[in-house]
């Protein structure tokens, strides 16, 4: 993703600032000072705008981050997050609390994103091993053998590495390692086998390791 560094730094500053402001001003959307999620759900069923807004603010980061990881495009991620919330709010009257609200929302978000990827003809999960051979795999000489990431990974670098993953690998990696879905859930969501999900995940991590090692070597070279 181009210019991601500038955006990232910028975003960090905005986040810090808005947290500071919200903390000092008693924002109505702050769950600590307002209504609980359960109350908000009930009130949203009555059509209360403030309740929808509370639910939105409670989950916006998680939903938007998920969308952004999956598509690596902020404008597209905004549209997808918007669509996910709208789908949820349209069905909120049917929510009976069998599963956690957040689980329901995240599942819905994943479906919205996958639908979009499919619409665009992007592989949701690469079923063919050939895909792995075709994509721009980093050269072996960047060393998986004797180089170690040594205990810490820069979050921004990890983000950039994830952005470089082919869509199929990225889907499984985001769902499993970032979002915490289990392989059986992923298999069900994306429509692949559990074994396939596991092998995609493993390959995604190997690729990320290569990317990260490469980035680190480049950084060392340029100072």
């Amino acid at each position, binding site marked *: 993703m181009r210019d991601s560094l500038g955006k990232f730094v*910028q975003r960090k500053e*905005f986040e810090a600032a808005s947290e500071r*402001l919200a903390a000092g001003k008693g924002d109505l959307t702050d769950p600590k000072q307002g209504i609980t999620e359960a109350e908000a759900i009930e009130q949203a069923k009555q059509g*209360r705008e*403030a309740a929808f807004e509370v639910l939105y603010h409670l989950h916006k980061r998680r939903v938007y981050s998920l969308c952004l990881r999956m598509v690596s495009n902020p404008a597209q*991620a905004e549209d997808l997050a918007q669509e996910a919330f709208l789908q949820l709010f349209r069905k909120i009257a049917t929510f009976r609390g069998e599963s956690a609200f957040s689980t329901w929302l995240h599942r819905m978000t994943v479906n919205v994103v996958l639908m979009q990827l499919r619409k665009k003809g992007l592989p949701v999960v690469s079923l063919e091993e050939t895909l792995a051979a075709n994509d721009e795999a980093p050269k072996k000489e960047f060393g998986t053998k*004797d180089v170690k990431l040594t205990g810490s990974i820069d979050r921004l670098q990890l983000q950039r590495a994830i952005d470089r993953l082919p869509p199929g690998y990225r889907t499984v990696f985001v769902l*499993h*390692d970032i979002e915490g879905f289990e392989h059986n859930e992923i298999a069900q969501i994306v429509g692949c086998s559990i074994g396939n999900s*596991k092998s995609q995940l493993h390959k995604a991590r190997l690729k990320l390791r290569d990317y990260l090692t490469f980035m680190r070597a480049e950084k060392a070279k340029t100072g």
Partner: protein
Amino acid sequence: MKCSDVERVLPELLDGAPDGAFPADFETHVKSCPACSNLVSDLKLISSEARQLAATEEPAPRVWLRIAAELRAEGLISDAAIREPESAPTRPILVPTSRRPRWSARWLAPVAAAVVAAGSYVVSHKPAPQVAKQQAPATRVASPIPETPAATSASAPTPAPRQMAQKPAKPTDTIRPAVEPESSEEDQQFLTAVSTRAPSMRTTYENQLKAVNADIRETQAYVDRNPGDTDARQHLMDAYEQKALLYQIALDRIQ
């Protein structure tokens, strides 16, 4: 077990086995083989670090504004109509489908236009954001020499200087306090209009206005420190458009 065996069983083992519960021969090899040991610890590290990315990104305020507009258009938000029978629109609410302004009420249109214009003006005056932001209409119009004259003439319509001039002067400290600045005149005008026409919505709009003003302020501060950051400048312009959109949605809803 050899290195190739480790690579073969790793996809299954890494997530399946709880820490330390690897088969003995696997453990033995990994302990004695630096390459495999590095591989296993790196993959675990990547996996655990990834978890930190789960909710790091903040969507722009416009995302909620669009959702709210859509919910109203679909009739899913009903309290505005119930609590404000005198101002409940009888026609369907027009939902902006693009971010292009579509002003339909006289009383707010000039204000909102000025918001956009002011944004264009401030953003386009690259070399002197401090001056551009901090007052004196004459100085503001005449003195900062724009680095990009074309962009300036295209993006700073005539009302901008006049509207900006109405804003109270602020201190020109380079380090700004992280406190809420006083509302601008157009904000007050806007909130007064909302109070008159739809008192129950005042708090909502006041909060949204605060949020977008905070965004503008923080972005401006960032741009001041990093004048060459085009992303930040774009974000600043977006923030002003955001504010204009807020006005627009409000006037669609309460006129």
